[in-house]
Structure formats: structure tokens, C-alpha cells
């Protein structure tokens, strides 16, 4: 008997039944295919303004830094300013994202693509943000390499306020909505809540374990469509 049959058989035997009949299968299929949200905490359910201030508060609490910008065009300048404050060279590795690529990066030494571990600063676009815990949703794709989220020491993430939602469930709903396939998940979907950390040595909290030492979030309050 294969291990697969052994395990599934054992599960059924222990639960005291055979394989599911079609009727109960249909109920389970329905639960699976029309996902319902469970209880969603109230804290993230305010209006856009409340969500933004909650997001900033929660992200800052976990040692991220946040700058609020009026327009996407201001991103290169804000990045340059941040790098100067951190006493870093003006060198960045950009995700190949259309919204980032259309900006004027001429004042910085900017290259594009995934990271092989030699980049000190990575700049990416967030797919979304969830106010309830100040978390960023970052998805893999041609415009968003996963290596840029984990290898550089300084992780700069651009989040459009329009992509900020109250809770995780809203992001899952959007993923489903935007995909016309049943396989709507990217290879990697990461929720990022603050910069990397560890408390493995004497329970002392230290930032910058294996992932980024710093997380800087640029929130774009005007998503570009209004102006």
C-alpha cells in the first residue's frame, strides 16, 4: 500500500467512516470554493484616513519608518533624502515595476532587477498594506522580485494609500478578484511587519537578523489618478 493510501485510510478509519459521500462532499466543496471571512477585528475598519493613521502607528511600533508623500513623482527625492540620513551612497536596486520605472531616478545610481546579495538598498512597490497590524503585502512577479525584499540591508517599500486596506481578508479578496484563473496566488506572497529581528541570544531583541536591518515605507497619499 502506498503511504498516501495508508495515511488517508488511517484518517478515515480513526474518524470511524469511509470516504465522503457526494452530498457531504458538495458542502465541503462549497465551503472551500466560496470562502467566507471569519471575525475581523474592528480596529482596521475605519475610514481611509483612520486606516492610514493606524497603519503608520502600527508599522512604527515595530520599528519601521514611514514617510507620507503627496505624489509618486516625489519617491526618488524621498529615497535620496533617506539614504543621506542613513549616511549611505545614493545607490539603489529597483524592482522592474512600471510605476517605479517611469520615475526620474537620474539623481541616484539606480539599477533594475532581482538581487544576488550585493545590493545594500532595494526599492519595491507593495501590492497592498493592512492597517490592522501595519503589515505590507508583497507579491512575487515580473515586477516584484522576492530577493529584493530579503537580501538588501535597507528595504524601501512604496505603498499607494489607495492600496491600503483594513485587514488581511481584503487583500485575499482582491487577489481573487484580479485574477481570472483559479490559481490566483503568486509563487510568494509575503506579509512584512517591520524589519527582520531575532531574540535568540538571551531573549535580547536585535534588529536585522537575516533579512533587512531597516524597513522604510513611503506612503503615497495621492495615487496619481486624482490629479
Amino acid at each position, binding site marked *: 500500500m502506498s503511504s498516501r493510501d495508508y495515511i488517508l485510510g488511517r484518517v478515515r478509519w480513526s474518524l470511524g467512516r469511509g470516504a*465522503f459521500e457526494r452530498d457531504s462532499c458538495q458542502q465541503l466543496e462549497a465551503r472551500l470554493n466560496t470562502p467566507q*471571512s471569519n471575525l475581523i477585528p474592528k480596529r482596521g475598519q475605519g475610514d481611509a484616513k483612520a486606516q492610514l493613521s493606524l497603519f503608520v502607528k502600527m508599522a512604527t511600533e515595530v520599528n519601521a519608518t514611514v514617510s507620507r508623500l503627496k505624489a509618486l513623482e516625489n519617491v526618488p527625492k524621498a529615497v535620496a533624502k533617506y539614504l543621506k540620513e542613513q549616511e549611505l551612497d545614493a545607490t539603489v536596486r529597483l524592482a522592474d515595476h512600471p510605476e517605479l520605472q517611469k520615475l526620474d531616478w537620474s539623481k541616484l545610481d539606480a539599477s533594475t532587477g532581482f538581487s544576488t546579495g550585493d545590493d545594500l538598498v532595494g526599492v519595491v512597490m507593495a501590492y497592498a498594506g493592512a492597517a490592522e497590524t501595519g*503589515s505590507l503585502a508583497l507579491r512575487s512577479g515580473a515586477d516584484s522580485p522576492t530577493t529584493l525584499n530579503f537580501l538588501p540591508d535597507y528595504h524601501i517599500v512604496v505603498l499607494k494609500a489607495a492600496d491600503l486596506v483594513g485587514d488581511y*481578508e481584503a487583500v485575499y479578496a482582491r487577489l481573487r478578484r484580479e485574477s481570472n484563473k483559479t490559481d490566483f496566488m503568486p509563487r510568494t506572497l509575503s506579509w512584512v*511587519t517591520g524589519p527582520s529581528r531575532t*531574540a535568540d541570544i538571551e531573549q535580547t531583541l536585535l534588529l536585522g537578523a537575516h533579512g533587512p536591518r531597516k524597513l522604510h515605507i513611503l506612503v503615497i497619499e495621492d495615487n496619481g489618478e486624482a490629479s
Partner: protein
Amino acid sequence: MKLNAHNFKENAAKALKDEDLQASLAKLGTGFPLKRLAAAARLPEFEALRDQARDIKDHTLRHLDFYLEKFECKVQETGGHVHWARDIEDGRKIVYDICESVGAKTVTKGKSMIGEEMAINEYLEEKGLIPVETDLGEYIIQLRNEPPSHIIAPAIHLRKSHVEEAFRKTHTELPPERNLDEPEDLLKEARAMLRKKFIAADVGITGANFMIAETGSTVIVTNEGNGDLTQTLPRVHIVLCSIEKMVPNLEDCATLLRVLARSATGQEQSVYTTFSTGPKQMDDPDGPDQFHVVILDNGRSRMLGHDTHDMLRCIRCSACINHCPVYQSVGGHAYGSIYPGPMGSVLTPAIYGLEQSCDLPNASTMCGKCEEVCPVRIPIPQMLRSWREKQWEDGPVPILQRLAMSVWAFWAVRPKAYHFGAKIKMRLLGLLGRKNGHFKSLLFSKAWTKSRDFPAPEGKTFQQLWSEKGGRRS
């Protein structure tokens, strides 16, 4: 790791005298528990979320075969592979065969308790591969060649001097005069050493906190980012998980994630919660070419529908361990099992058999704190009690203990005689102990008085006091 659970008493006695260990454990009682308390207090829905988390796991376990098959199907649809392992031998072989098929030499590993259960590192080493643990705590204990002492903080038993010693012994290519006094220095060195390993690895092995049937995704929850580097950089990503890690939908997973980190470390959310679905997709600039999920049973399917069924709800947050007065006193190694603390004392006998782990169900004061803080409300004390009952029925109880219990039971079922006897005994002990308020030694109580004094009764039994108060609390 080899099971060494019959020596709990000896191990515990040693642990209590180990000054380094006691210094390491001193912080535990206030650290995680206070943070959990604060996080729970901040979220008004926390208790209701715990109820839902319990119900989601209950539903999934009742229909586990359905969800396992759905998950398998979805992983295959998204280009991944599912491997079923009935026991650890099976699991190890699957992992090695995958490594061999791609000609792997070095393997990076994210933290995985299933990996510990399989002793996958020892196995791969025997086969000539070089597995490298990348979670800082796991890396430290791998260098020291010892098992983890806690399921989420594996090196919690160590002082920083131990870490320094291990690094100096292993990182011989670095200048010996370098300064490693501060935790920051140690972290910096580990980060630099492991960075090279991440990039060189052929295969990355991670665990999984959850498997999602709807999408065929596996989920890891970490703070360091090592798990993400482990699963993104190598050509092959292998996920080790066990059957009970299943949840139906992304929404169900969201609910469990809201109670996981808060219960574990008191964080609102862990730093990185990453969902992996299949290998890298057509346009992806990075990510692994192969995605394999190894689903281990190792005795769990036997637990379904039986006394320890509810234990399969466990999401491995470690809240029960962090709050356990026994764990706080003796640390994780004393248990001699892969999973320490209250959850381990239920799970270990279920997986390995009661004969192999007879002390564990007794390694509890039955204070009930574990159940109180469990995010999925597992009745741990009740299950420990059921193990004790089995022990009583099936044999491995010393003859003197058995005799003493029989004598007690004889009187306990004769309440009038019992209360009369107890009244006389309490009055007598009350009189004898009036002067000191305690006894340094007492007949039939050597095991107690050997390490602490026995407080003298005040002359009345509980039953007497209770009826004097008319059966009311105050």
C-alpha cells in the same frame, strides 16, 4: 533526536542545579507571558478569535482526508509535488531522494519541528550532504550539536558566552582576537557567515505553520527572514509538514494568524508571514524551480477520533510551554523529547507510546495555565490526566505508588470514614506543627520533605471549613 523521556526526574534534578540554565530561564516567566497578556488585552476580539480558531481546526480535522486530497490536487495544479510519508524513515528517504535527484551538496534549513522529528540533519549528513540551520537559535544549537530546548526559541537555555564559544570554535577563518562580547557582535557574525551559505545552497528546506487546501500554499511565520531566504534562493524548495497543519481557506488562515503570534511572543504579527504556492512562475525573476511538500503522519492519524484528538488542533505557538511552571523551572531538555512542555507531554506519548515517555504525563502540576492560554483551547490537563489513567491501567506504575493509591482509594469511596480519619489527622498535625508552622520531615512524605518543608495544617479539613461557610466562597 533520540527520545530520552524516561529520565525526566533525573534530568529535572540536574536542571534545577544548573546555574547557567537557571539564569537563562529566569527571564522566561515574565518575558513571553507578559507580552502575550498585553497583546491579548489590546485586541477586544481576542477571546472570540480563539473560539473561531478552535472551531476552524476542529472542522478541518473532522474532514482531514477531504482537505488533504484537495491540497494535494492544488499543489499539483500549481506545478508542485506532494509526497506522503507515513513515518520518519519514509520522510527522510523522500527528502534525500529529492536532494540526490538534483545533485545537491549543500542544503539550507529553516526552522522545522518536523525536521527535528525526522532528525533530517543527521540523516542527510550520513548521506554526505551538508545541511545548515539558518534560524539563529537553530544554527547555534547545530554548532553545539544539541537538540532545541523550546519549539520557537530553540537556544533559550543558553547564555551568550555559550554562543561566543561555539562561534570561536567553528568560525576559525575569522581573526581570533575579534570582539564578541555583545549579542550584536554575535548576530553580525552569524549573519555574515550564513549569508554565504544561503547563496551557495542547492536545496532549501523549510517547515510550514499551515497548509491551505484552497490554494495549495504552505505558510511559514518567522521573524528573522531566514526562512524566506532558504526558500527563495536555492533551485529546490522542500517543505516539511505534518497532516494536522491543514486549514481550508486563506480566511481561516487569517484567523489563526491573528492568534498565533500574539499567543507566542506577544507580537501583533510576526515580521514575515509568507505563503508559498508552487515553484517560480513563468515571469518570476527569482524563486525555486521545484516545489515539494512532504506530508508526515508519524502516528498522528491514530490520534484522530481518540483521547488525544484535540491535541491535533495545536498550532505550535508555545504559549503552554512559556506559561508552564514546570518548564520554567527545568527548561526543555529535561523532558528528553522533541516537543517539551505541556503540549509535548501530550503529543510525545501519542506518537512514541507511553512506555517510551512514562514520566511526561506526570511532569505537570495540573495548574491549568496551559489550557487557559492555548489559542485553540486544547484541554491539555484533561489529556494529561487521561494518559495517567492509561498508565494506571496498562502497567508502568511503580508497585509502591500503586499500593498507596489503592489504600487511598479504599478510604476515598467510604466518605464517612474518610472524613472522620481526615479530621483526626488534621487536628493531630495541627497540634504537632503549631510551634513551627511546618514540618521538616513527615512519615510517608519523604519525597516531599526531601526538597521542601511541609506546611502544617491549621487543624481543620477543607470539608469542615467549606461546610462552616455554608458552601460559599466568602
